[in-house]
């Protein structure tokens, strides 16, 4: 299983690699890597990033090209914001930004949150948030301060989380990645 982590400049991109390398052949690549260079991907992770996606879209490199690839995609923080906007959602600054511990309420246990309790502690760090999700997407988790903590596309294996499953303090983080890789493995077998 080959997973490319698209580096959008997040503080924790390398942590995503640290978690994934024990589960798959994981590599970090720059976000201006031509899609043909990662055509052998079984799954993609779009990392978080320093840029504010809404105002700094040019720093998101070729993320929109990667979203056309027929592989399961997992967007984290800025990665989720970017894919939400790409498919027609809207972004904006959070009224009460989340830094550090957040209580997450999971509303769908079908995919990324399979086998994970409905209330867990996750860690987040973001200024912007998804205000409206694209058509054909569901919200799969929320918190008191941020309604869109996780999304799923109904037609394609595309997922996003606003918080950071890759940091040590997030409960069940490795399980979320394992669930994602399980989806990727089934997708590969067709």
């Amino acid at each position, binding site marked *: 299983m080959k997973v490319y982590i698209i580096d959008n400049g997040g*503080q924790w991109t390398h*942590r995503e690699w640290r978690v994934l390398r*024990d589960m798959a052949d994981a590599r970090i690549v720059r976000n201006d890597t031509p899609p043909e260079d990662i055509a052998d991907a079984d799954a993609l992770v779009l990392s978080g990033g320093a840029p504010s996606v809404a105002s700094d879209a040019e*720093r998101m490199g070729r993320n929109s090209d990667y979203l056309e690839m027929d592989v399961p995609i997992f967007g984290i923080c800025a990665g989720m914001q970017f894919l939400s906007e790409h498919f027609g959602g809207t972004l904006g600054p959070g009224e009460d930004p989340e*830094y*550090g511990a957040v209580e997450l309420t999971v509303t769908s246990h079908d995919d990324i949150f399979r086998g994970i309790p409905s209330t867990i502690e996750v860690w987040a760090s973001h200024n912007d948030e998804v205000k409206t999700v694209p058509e054909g997407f569901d919200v799969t988790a929320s918190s008191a301060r941020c309604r869109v903590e996780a999304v799923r596309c109904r037609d394609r294996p595309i997922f996003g989380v606003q918080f950071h499953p890759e940091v*040590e*303090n997030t409960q069940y983080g490795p399980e979320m990645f394992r669930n994602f890789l399980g989806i990727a493995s089934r997708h590969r077998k067709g």
Partner: protein
Amino acid sequence: MFDADKFIQEAIASVKEKTQGRAIIACSGGVDSSVSAVIAGRAMGDRLLAVFVDTGLMRKGEAEEVEAMFSDTGINFKSVDASKEYFDALKGITEPEQKRKAIGEKFIRIFEREAKEFGAKYLVQGTIAPDWIESGDGVRDTIKSHHNVGGLPKDMDMTLVEPLRDLYKDEVRQVARKLGIKSSERQPFPGPGLAVRCLAEVTPENIAVVREACFIVEDEIRKAAEAGKMKVPWQYFAVLLPARSVGVQGDRRAYGRTIAVRAVESIDGMTAAHSDIPLSVLNSISQRITSRMKDEVNRVVYDITDKPPATIEWE
């Protein structure tokens, strides 16, 4: 999972392959540089010289401790007293990034000098993942320039060798235990030393204040842990704040300085939660600092922010 034995073998082989000729390594006595030194020592033998620079920004007793530790390893070792040079370079600087850059610059100039004398072409460093991540690059914002990465001048004429670049602190500790390194469980201490715990100008006087306060915090927490009142936090120290406040000492008005106590729990330093230190322990720290250091400090506060939004160190 991370395999420390495999890592050690591969790292030794990789240092062997990357270096022809002599190298020096910057040793602070901390776990990152000690592990790097032992790995590089196994790869290079006598071609390696470990250099400890006393920046004047170290903790109480640290220079002596490092020297004692290295005499056991069989690695060529040299200690350089550069405290005056550092204080000169830091004169008048209070902005944290400028401070880190000045320290990085000084650090590399001293090592260039030592490298020349030893005939070394390579500089081995104990850089670990958070150092280069937080230092920023093309896509990443600079959170703070770690002196061994973001603080390095562009014109430096040595080739860097960084065997631990992809590791985090918990993994370095696993490697250190395998290698039998004494400092394996030592709490992290920043490369720029006490300079980043001194939010005022970095002068010998200010550093002496924060050094003593750090010592008291470490000592009180060690005692409390030994007495079973708490477990030892991941990292714990004092910070000298650039704020004065009014107090009263024996019916006399005081207008003294403020010490912030910081203690956090973490695995890898990339996220951290403030420690839940019992109030009685905080009270002992506060009383000891404000009585033993009464001429300088009349207020002690406890920092209860996590990372994010704060960082572990204040600068």
